[in-house]
């Protein structure tokens, strides 16, 4: 009993528990869930599909985790910024006003970096509003949430810009001769780079210190504003990378659909990962597991025939449950309840003993 309790208190319990639950349901529904096959030289299977499709959410969740930790707020612009980054990348590659490009206007890498840079720029904008002007994160990022997608559409001259150039698809699909989808590699790279940044520098501790008590962190010599700003920029870069990957998947810049509602999945991933949305301590592995759990849920729902439009209902229910479970009042209620039960038990035992 006590070992079970200890297990429940572990940081990664909630995310892993959710993940296993979803996988179990899938296993019961369709035993072929875990089978992986090789078709046309690439891997096929539900698991591969989840890992592949979950890449963008996982990348976004990495940035979102830091933003939540440092500012106790969420960046709700990441979906729109994804779209803008994808559009900017395609515009650079195709040239302004070109609807369908078969040759590139500039080297592919430049366009892609341009897209990521655009993400960073958006992050810097959000960061400046939150860190320097002390605007509520939700309100500050609402600006780009509304505007970024539209700016992307403007950049693409109000149309879907296609890049009909084979290597452009590599990033979002498969590299020639490699059976594993490229987005999985990119996700691993992003996670690695950010983890190293957090572990090898003091950034991880600074972010938590600022998130827990910005004033005290400042007195101790941390530039709280800069740390907050940096987190938003990292979040923007992640959105930029995710945007370029998403655009590469469909080798086009579909401003209206790239990253649509992804900000919600990213935030949900952070919450599901056992991170408190009140900021402070964070748990990056949790967020990443959370991201794939969400993708697993989405994939499951689709496989069960629930339409894409209705899937958010289920997600919403999950969000409600997570938020309630994390709420301090709920935790306090649980604690007093167990304390009372304990008191009642000991009192009962005492009476028995006295009799």
């Amino acid at each position, binding site marked *: 009993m006590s070992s079970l309790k200890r297990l429940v208190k572990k940081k990664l319990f909630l995310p892993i528990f959710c993940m296993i639950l979803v996988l179990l349901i899938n296993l019961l529904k369709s035993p072929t869930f875990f089978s992986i096959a090789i078709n046309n030289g690439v891997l096929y299977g539900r698991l591969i599909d989840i890992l592949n499709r979950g890449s963008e959410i996982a990348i976004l969740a990495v940035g979102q985790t830091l933003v939540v930790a440092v500012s106790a707020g969420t960046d709700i612009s990441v979906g729109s910024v994804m779209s803008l980054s994808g559009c900017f990348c395609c515009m650079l590659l195709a040239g302004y006003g070109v609807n369908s490009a078969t040759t590139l206007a500039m080297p592919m890498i430049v366009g892609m970096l341009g897209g990521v840079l655009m993400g960073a720029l958006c992050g810097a904008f959000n960061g400046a509003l939150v860190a320097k002007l002390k605007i509520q994160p939700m309100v500050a990022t609402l600006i780009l949430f509304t505007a970024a997608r539209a700016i992307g559409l403007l950049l693409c001259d109000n149309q879907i810009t296609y890049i009909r150039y084979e290597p452009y698809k590599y990033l979002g699909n498969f590299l020639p001769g490699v059976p594993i989808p490229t987005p999985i590699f990119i996700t691993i790279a992003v996670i690695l780079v950010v983890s190293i940044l957090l572990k090898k520098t003091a950034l991880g501790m600074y972010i938590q210190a600022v998130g827990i008590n910005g004033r005290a962190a400042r007195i101790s*010599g941390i530039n709280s504003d800069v740390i907050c700003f940096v987190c938003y920029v990292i979040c923007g870069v992640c959105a930029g990378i995710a945007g370029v990957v998403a655009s590469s998947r469909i080798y086009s810049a579909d401003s209206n659909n790239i990253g649509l509602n992804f900000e919600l999945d990213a935030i949900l991933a952070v919450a599901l990962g056992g991170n408190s949305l009140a900021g402070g301590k964070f748990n990056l592995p949790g967020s990443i597991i959370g991201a794939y759990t969400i993708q697993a849920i989405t994939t499951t729902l689709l496989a069960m025939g629930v339409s894409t439009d209705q899937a958010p209902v289920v997600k919403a229910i999950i969000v409600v449950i997570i938020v309630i479970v994390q709420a301090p009042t709920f935790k306090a209620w649980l604690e007093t309840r167990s304390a*009372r039960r304990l008191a009642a038990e000991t009192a009962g035992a005492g009476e028995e003993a006295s009799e």
Partner: protein
Amino acid sequence: MAMNEQILFTMKDITKTFPGVIALNRAQLTLRKGEIHALMGENGAGKSTIIKCLTGVYERDSGEIRMEGVEGNVHNHSTQDAQKIGIATVYQEVNLCPNLSVAENLFIGREPRNKAGFIDWKAMIRLARETMEKLEITLDVTQTLENYSIAIQQMVAIARAVDMNCKALILDEPTSSLDDKEVAKLFRLMRSLKEKGVGILFVTHFLEQVYQVCDRITVMRNGQFVGEYPIEELPRLKLVGAMLGKDFNDLASIKPEGGLSIGEDVVVDAKGLSHKGTIKPFDFRIRKGEVVGVTGLLGSGRSEMVRCLYGADRAQTGTLEMEGKGLKATAPIDSIKAGMGFLPDDRKADGCIADLSVRENIILALQSRQGIFRTLPKAKQDELADQFIDLLQIKTASRETPLSQLSGGNQQKVILARWLCTHPDFLILDEPTRGIDIGTKTEFQKLVLKFAAEGMSVVFISSEIEEMLRTCSRMCVMRDGNKVGEIEGEMTQESVMGAIAGGDKE
């Protein structure tokens, strides 16, 4: 004065532990009807813990509470439970709604209703007037509460408690933010309540006030009951002795004979520093190995002055030289790099990073001085943490325990450790001993002198003049945001008090 001997409540063998710390160890407390009973003890003695155990904020681990008119062992699970059986608490920070009227605050949650079930405003205002008149408090009950001073707000809180038929009234440091006149008003109210048979438990740090209003004193130390005394039997010196757990003589000078060896080099030289709205231009110099006190009443600008020196609040005028070099600190990090350290007085808001571990809290300032890219190796961090946990005898389960789980005094030690490990040349300690148990308090003062002997310059602020007299060789006197002077040489409690109070300026 005839003291009523009828007991209101008794608490016996109350024990309460927090992770790693025994906050209360078989403590006891008895309150009688119609008495004003002082609960005294140093910070960390367990005064607030025992009150919280009584009022249901904490659940006690063991022990017995008997209350007049209540059957059996009393277990309050919330302050509401406590209120139901007649125990009300008024805290230093008033727990009322400042944006509502006085009358509304008096009757919130139990408003008089008319037949239709709506609030009967007329009756409410009439009843409020009656209540206030009974207690001889003159004010307009229809006014918004925030229009009145903290003292009046506290009285409203007391009136509310009294009106809810409280038998035991607990006043937790009610006077710490009041001026003398307001204190006198509060005492009048307390005395009149006493006449009416209410038992009042009075928690305060001001010895003076205890002797003005109290009938009996319970002294606590380190979570334990030291004794209960009628006021006549416990003169001031004995009270302090009981609180500190040693004869007052033990506390005699810890300064080395012949004073401190103060160097010639000026470490910090500030001219005309000021911060708009908080502190008017001041000069400040400190030499190597000197311990300088800053004294003054609460709100006189003590903390504001050192915040300005350190650069926590950016100075708008003036110049500051640190070891001969100009220092224009735009943020604390500049000051840290120049060799300063600053332990702020508001531990919770400016010091603790509650959810981070003891280790992380200790190395934080050192890390930020090193810069973000030069991470301290984990082994080095562990070593530093262990070293200071040992040196300052920090009571913690381990170095990885979150700081929030430590008691206030131990948290303070962790934050001191944070600065000590940067080896500052100039260390500012703003109320460092607040919330530190008495044994460590002396240790702490000795440490300060030891650092000074090793060449560190220290600014030391304490509300207890006694403490500063024992450590400082010079004191800056603050009044109303102004540095009004310095005193040096033979300093006594009286001379310092005189300087603080002002009058004839020397």
